[in-house]
């Protein structure tokens, strides 16, 4: 049984999101008879070596063949299995896009696609491996739920919640080892319910994945300048937490979304689609990767260059907040 405490939070943070995912699968392998895990030649990268050794009958390495990875996963799901399939986010969300649409979306089969190393996590691998558009693509598929955990503790929570809920999921993992900790202690996690990480007024910073940590930092900087900002962990991008957004729209002067994803079609797009349907909604600032391929660099460099760190985020929010006179 996995325990949620500060000791484990530190341990998992050191491992990073991928290894934490693998560790969670090892635990789930003991608990769920019908669990099956597949990967596309990324067993070690997915942190699944111990799972493979412990449960050889529940593990398949499909090789470098992502279309087939999803197709076989779908067949196993049709036979009643709870299936996890892992590959890099770019390949899972793009190379096998139509397989995901047909099998997970249209047929709603019980497959959890785990996108490893999304955002800028792949560093020196370069743009071929960056997860820039995966949220936008996965979000466009009807019926597919999207989870984007804020830290390693939330990876455990999200993985377990997805395993226990029948239906298709895309689980997006970001960051590298020494993944910043958002949750030091146990907390209530529910698919589709955003977590208010820092309650406050005036500005709502709605962040997802790795950006939750940086959003908290940004909110602290803003606070030191006399501006109060709330931080919300939108760990489920689909279905969105409409209630939380409606409340934020009613209470706040500015809504900010922050994501390690293109500003096209990601969390920012999802929130904007919701807000524009409200009779009165505050202005929205979308912070994310620019709509462009990147100069290659390591993870920290790329976050810095793209303005996705606490100080940069705070600066952008300040500019937007101060540019309005009608508050």
């Amino acid at each position, binding site marked *: 049984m996995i325990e949620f405490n500060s000791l484990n939070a530190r341990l998992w943070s050191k491992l990073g999101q991928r290894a934490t995912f693998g560790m969670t699968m090892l635990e789930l392998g003991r608990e769920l008879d019908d669990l099956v895990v597949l990967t596309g030649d990324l067993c070690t990268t997915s942190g699944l070596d111990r799972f493979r050794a412990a449960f050889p*009958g529940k593990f*398949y390495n*499909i*090789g470098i*063949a992502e*279309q*087939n990875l*999803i*197709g*076989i*996963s*779908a*067949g*196993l*799901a*049709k*036979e*009643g*299995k709870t299936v996890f399939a892992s590959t890099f986010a770019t390949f899972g969300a793009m190379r096998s896009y*139509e*397989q995901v649409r*047909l*099998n997970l979306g*249209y*047929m709603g089969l019980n497959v959890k696609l785990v996108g490893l190393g999304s955002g800028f996590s792949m560093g020196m691998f370069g743009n071929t491996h960056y997860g820039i558009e995966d949220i936008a693509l996965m979000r466009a598929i009807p019926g597919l739920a999207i989870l984007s955990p804020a830290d390693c503790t939330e990876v455990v929570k999200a993985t377990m919640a997805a395993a226990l809920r029948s239906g298709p999921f895309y689980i997006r993992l970001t960051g590298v080892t020494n993944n910043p900790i958002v949750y030091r202690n146990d907390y209530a996690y529910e698919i589709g319910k955003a977590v208010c990480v820092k309650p406050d007024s005036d500005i709502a910073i709605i962040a997802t994945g790795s950006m939750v940590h940086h959003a908290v930092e940004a909110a602290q900087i803003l606070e030191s300048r006399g501006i109060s900002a709330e931080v919300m962990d939108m760990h489920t991008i689909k279905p969105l937490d409409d209630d939380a957004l409606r409340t934020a729209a009613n209470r706040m002067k500015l809504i900010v979304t922050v994501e390690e994803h293109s500003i096209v079609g990601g969390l920012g797009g999802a929130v904007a689609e919701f807000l524009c349907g409200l009779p009165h909604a505050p202005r929205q600032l979308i912070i994310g990767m620019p709509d462009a391929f990147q100069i290659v660099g390591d993870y920290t460099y790329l976050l810095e260059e793209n303005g996705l760190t606490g100080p940069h985020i705070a600066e952008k929010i300040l500019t937007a907040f101060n540019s309005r006179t009608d508050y």
Partner: protein
Amino acid sequence: MTARDETIQNLEAMARRMRRCALRLALSAGNNGAHVGSGLSIIEIMAVLYGGILRIDPKNPAWDGRDRFILSKGHGTLGYYPALMEAGLITREELASFEKNGGILPGQPVMNLEKGIEYSSGTLGHGLSVGIGLALAGKRRGSPHRVFVLMGDGECNEGSVWEACMAARHYRLNNLVAIVDANEMQSDGARCDIMAADYEAMWRAFGWDVRVVDGHNVKDLFETLGMENRTDSPRVIIARTVKGKGVSFIENKAEWHHNRLTREQYDAAMRELPP
């Protein structure tokens, strides 16, 4: 006459009924048109599968022990739906809803286990991978069910077919049977002009147990489809067929890949078909 001869005769009669039924459906589709050529080429394959090979229970279509059939070439519904009716999985009334707005039997199948429809297809190159999943699960839990996946030879242009082909052999899935409707035509014309490939050699090279049959010879099909697989390899049956089989002005004509059948054409076609 032996019982086997009688079975063959019954299956041949079933195929004749199905071919006429397919044309009635094509006519009923009106201006929507239908994949006429691709449906007619698989009539005998479907008749033999649903009339003599597949272990299914029409009273309990989702029965766990059933053989799984995936129509990966989803545009073959003119061959598929009549077989489902012959097998008692759908009613005549349901069949009449073919390509009707909001109906359960559109031009390409939609998964509906209660009606024995295993998989939503239409987009090509998906079925074999899914069949591997079904076969793997069967092996792992010791279920005797077999998995049959029907593909087109044009469909084998898709790279995903060969990803699956490689994996099925790797997992030694001798409970999996791929059937290739080798009618040598695809949407734009002759396969050899569009993407010439020696599929038979390719399946062999991938390590499959390859059988080649006359895809309109019911006896050949019945024997080959029913043959126990004593190897540890998956089996592919390359069924040599004629696109649009049975109707002279449809056979081997690219324009009949998907087309509208007029009343006059229907009457002319029916005159060519044995009752």
